[in-house]
């Protein structure tokens, strides 16, 4: 191969210009490696062209290289950021963890709320239970009252019982009482609703009287007058009474009735006895 002719052909100038085809470029490259003259020729052409083209540059800011370097660093840091972004896939698990914690918190709050509600309900239940037992007591009381009332009614209806009004005497004319006498069973039921409450230190005393001669027999005192609701008292009476009277006596009662304090008196009619 005629190297000088090859150099003189101008192909190396075109090579430096980049005006050759890919295959021609490869060929030149191979020849450059084989022939020092060709290689030297290319270097000189290139050096001359670099100088020529550089001459067409009016001037370059000396800071331009720093701007470029800065961009390179920026780019590589961006790439690093990208690389880091890839690893951000992991935080997805963190999201799971976060939502897990959030759920746990919600559940905890829910539990607390339920506990609170439970306590409220329990206190309400105990309120209701108290109310309920109150009501039960009331019902029991009512039942007792009803039983008492029924018992009284039976007594009143009993044909063997003598009903005897005791009328107010003297200054106690406004007072009254009633005696229902069960002669068979030797009981009297005394209704004293028409009597005023006895003053402190005094009690009512009930007397059975024989009229001829006048003989009083104490049937007992009404100790719990104030606390009894229906004011009906049951007393034992074994006497063959002609009349019944009620006097106000000092606490503990008296041997004989204080006639000044005779509140009510009633006589058993002959026909009834």
């Amino acid at each position, binding site marked *: 191969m005629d190297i000088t002719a090859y150099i003189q052909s101008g*192909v190396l*100038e075109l090579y430096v210009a980049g005006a050759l085809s890919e295959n021609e470029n490869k060929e030149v490259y191979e020849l450059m490696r084989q022939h020092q003259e060709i290689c030297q020729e290319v270097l000189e052409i290139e050096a001359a062209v670099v*100088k020529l083209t550089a001459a067409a*540059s009016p001037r370059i800011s000396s800071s331009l290289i720093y701007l*470029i370097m800065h961009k390179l660093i920026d780019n590589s840091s961006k790439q690093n950021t990208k690389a880091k972004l890839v690893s951000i896939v992991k935080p997805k698990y963190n999201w799971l963890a976060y939502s897990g914690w959030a759920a746990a918190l919600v559940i905890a709050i829910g539990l607390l709320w339920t506990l609170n509600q439970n306590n409220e309900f329990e206190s309400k239940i105990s309120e209701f239970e108290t109310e309920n037992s109150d009501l039960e007591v009331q019902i029991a009381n009512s039942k007792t009252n009803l039983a008492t009332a029924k018992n009284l009614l039976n007594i009143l209806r009993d044909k063997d019982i003598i009903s005897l009004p005791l009328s107010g005497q003297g200054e106690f004319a406004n007072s009254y009482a009633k005696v229902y006498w069960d002669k068979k069973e030797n009981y009297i039921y005394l209704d004293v609703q028409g009597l005023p409450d006895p003053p402190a230190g005094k009690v009512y005393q009930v007397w059975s009287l024989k009229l001829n001669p006048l003989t009083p027999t104490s049937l007992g005192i009404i100790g719990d007058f104030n606390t009894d609701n229906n004011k009906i008292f049951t007393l034992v009476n074994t006497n063959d009474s002609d009349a019944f009277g009620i006097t106000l006596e000092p606490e503990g009662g008296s041997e004989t009735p204080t006639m000044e304090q005779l509140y009510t008196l009633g006589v058993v009619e002959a026909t009834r006895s």
Partner: protein
Amino acid sequence: MQLEVLISKFQEKDEKAFEELYHMYGHSMHGVIYNIVRDHDVAEEILQDVFVKAWNNADGYSAEKGRFFTWLINIARNAAIDKTRSKAFKNSKKNLNAAYFVDILEHSDSLDRQTDAIGIKKFVSQLAKQCIDVIELLYFKGFTQKEASETLDMPIGTVKTNIRKCIQQLRIIVLK
């Protein structure tokens, strides 16, 4: 440092090697770009892009395909031509086709700062019309030999002998 070593270091993302290559070819690339866009600021902007692009695509270069300078000048020309095709650029600039690199060389004071300034000015003043054309097309505009041959309406063989003669003259002046 040997150019081959420098280039392979550059390809391994060595910033020092990159900087050195910039100092070797920066002005040259800027000259080519400026010749196309004829705007100093725009040319500097494109120059930055060209070197950033070269850095990012360093792996794309292989010696078998051609000279590193050729690879780089190709990037520079394409970037500059792309810029002239952009709408914004077209609106601000008029037709640049008539302007040749010699205009810059003949009317530029900047050459004074260069050691070869006098030589290049002399070269340009002596340059035959056919040299101006063929250098403009092949080095500044990046035409292929076939394109140059068609544009200049001369056989490829003549393009080759002309460019050989012109670069010979240039070498005598700038390299001695």
